[in-house]
């Protein structure tokens, strides 16, 4: 990439990597650098190229164009078993014929680590994933969560340059998954392991990552810290794939003093930043940033409540304004705060700093 300083500190680097399967392009001219010690997530729907990207790092796939680097060593054509990585597979891929200890020791054994040293490392790794005492069991005798920990232990015991995680939590139930997220993250921090995490679960990506690359059709749509990705989505795809977003098409009416007045079907409101008058914009605002006011307040835009879904911590209020459906999340800060009913006329406020301008301009129809 252009910034050679950050490249020196990256554990994984792609330079214009393209991978095709027949005519289909799985990864398109992808360049990226994953900083040392970071937890990096590849997020996107199935078929977006995230798994292919991971497999290109592992060497299970070879790029058609471009180069792959691990710790500044070019590994584009290097066989997987000569690359410095470890991987946790989607279904764990624990060897059923080996005990937990033998599974964890496998990589060390293949690397020629002496028996005694191996035993120590295995013990330490098992302790790290809280599986001391399970060494002589077979994978079949373990629960899903325990198998997951064995898979993690088997990977981290290798002290790899990069740890690859291929949707490793997908096979677990919700509660276990949330606790494993926390554990995995703290383990990663403790070991300072550069980690590449593939997931289609946006919440998981937001919870765990230092940075997220949102992928679509073989390219990265947006790359950044979780907060940046969530709060300043660059495209409509990112805005809707990560959480919910209200999409509003608007036209700039006037501009000045670092802010602009824009007009949408339901009325006028203010947008941060100067824009040339007459420009058509596509805007996004998160539902939790939409403010509701009882009645028709001056300065608020008119809307009608169509439906209210009570969710405990919050309520989802479905609104309609100027023919455009809008969604607002209201915190259950006080009973009155969520006391809305269908058919009620309300005013909505779209705070200027919460409105995000998306790339690509407005479409002909909202």
């Amino acid at each position, binding site marked *: 990439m252009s910034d050679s300083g950050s490249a020196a500190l990256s554990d994984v680097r792609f330079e214009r990597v393209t991978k095709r399967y027949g005519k289909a392009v799985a990864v398109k001219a992808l360049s990226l650098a994953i900083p040392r010690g970071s937890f990096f997530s590849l997020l996107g729907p199935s078929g977006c190229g995230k798994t292919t990207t991971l497999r290109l790092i592992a060497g299970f796939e070879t790029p058609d164009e471009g180069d792959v680097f691990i710790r500044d060593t070019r590994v584009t054509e290097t066989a997987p078993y000569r690359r410095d990585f470890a991987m946790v597979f989607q279904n764990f891929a624990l060897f059923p014929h080996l005990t937990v200890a033998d599974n964890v020791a496998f990589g060390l054994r293949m690397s020629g680590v002496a028996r005694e040293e191996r035993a120590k490392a295995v013990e330490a790794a098992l302790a790290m994933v809280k599986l001391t005492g399970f060494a002589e069991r077979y994978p*079949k005798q373990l629960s899903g969560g325990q198998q997951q920990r064995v898979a993690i232990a088997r990977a981290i015991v290798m002290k790899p340059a990069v740890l690859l995680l291929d949707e490793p939590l997908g096979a677990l139930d919700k509660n276990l998954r949330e606790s494993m997220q926390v554990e995995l993250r703290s383990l990663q921090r403790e070991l300072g392991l550069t980690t590449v995490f593939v997931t289609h679960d946006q919440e998981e990506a937001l919870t765990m990552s230092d940075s997220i690359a949102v992928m679509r059709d073989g390219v990265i749509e947006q790359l950044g810290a979780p907060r940046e990705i969530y709060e300043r989505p660059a495209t409509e795809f990112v805005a809707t794939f990560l959480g919910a977003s209200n999409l509003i098409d608007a036209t700039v009416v006037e501009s000045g003093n670092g802010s602009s007045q824009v007009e949408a079907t339901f009325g006028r409101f203010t947008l941060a930043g100067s824009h040339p008058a007459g420009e058509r914009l596509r805007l996004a605002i998160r539902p939790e940033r939409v403010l509701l006011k009882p009645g028709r307040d001056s300065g608020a835009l008119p809307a009608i409540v169509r439906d209210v879904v009570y969710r405990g911590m919050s309520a989802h209020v479905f609104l309609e304004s100027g023919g455009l459906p809008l969604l607002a999340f209201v915190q259950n800060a006080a009973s009155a705060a969520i006391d809305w009913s269908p058919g009620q006329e309300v005013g909505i406020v779209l705070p200027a700093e919460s409105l995000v301008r998306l790339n690509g301009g407005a479409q002909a129809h909202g």
Partner: protein
Amino acid sequence: MASGSFRLTRRWAAFALVAPPLLVFLVFFVVPLVSLFWVSFHAPSQSELYGPELTLEHYATILTDPFYHTIILRTLSTGAVILALCLVLGYATAYVLAPLPPRKRLLLLLLLVVPLMVSNVVRAYGWIAILGRQGLVNAVLRDTGLIERPLLLLNSFEAVSFGLMTIMLPYMVISVANALASIDAQYKEAAQSLRADPVRTFIHVTWPLSSPGVASGMLLVFLLTLSAYVTITLLGGPRMKLLVSLVFDSVGSFRWPLAAAISFALLVMALIVSGLIMALLRPQRVQGRG
């Protein structure tokens, strides 16, 4: 009380369900085997199935007679050679077939099975046409001037082993190919991600995970080898008799008790070798039970 009688009915229902197969097993397997065992302890008789006196002479003959030792050893070595050939050739073939798309693999496996649809007798005669004194091999060798008199290729250890091997090979290929095809590709990738090169991936992952298929293939091959008769008779002739030929010869000379005793010797050999195969391959380890 109601639940008690219900439980009773259920037990009867379960019994009724297993009774027919159990009965078939008893009548057609256990009873004949037991009666055969009983026969094997009797003196022979010219007019009856067996004479009235009880004797251990048949087992003593099998255990002490050098002639029987020669034949048993020959039977075991034939089995060993066939097992080794089937293992190497069958595994290699299966290894090539396994990664193919299921439809293509099935088609090729079916192609392998086609020879099994031809009677062993016909196939043995096929080998005779190839290996006989006037067979293809000898004809070619003679026409090219390499030999003057035909070579004795038939009636030899090699002819029997090779002929049987060609019959057994498909069984090995099918069971190994199925085992290999059912191994999740992730295991191989996992091994590679843990620094195992292709050779060590094979030794430490693919081979053990395919061991149930290898074991069932080897058991099939060995047991079918022990019980093969037509091929042995046609390709081996009287010079290459195996234990099963002696069963036939004993029956042909009305020594049913000796035939029964040799049959049990065969059964014991089958059990011992099966046990050895299982002990060496440990197919149960794939189930995660040591």
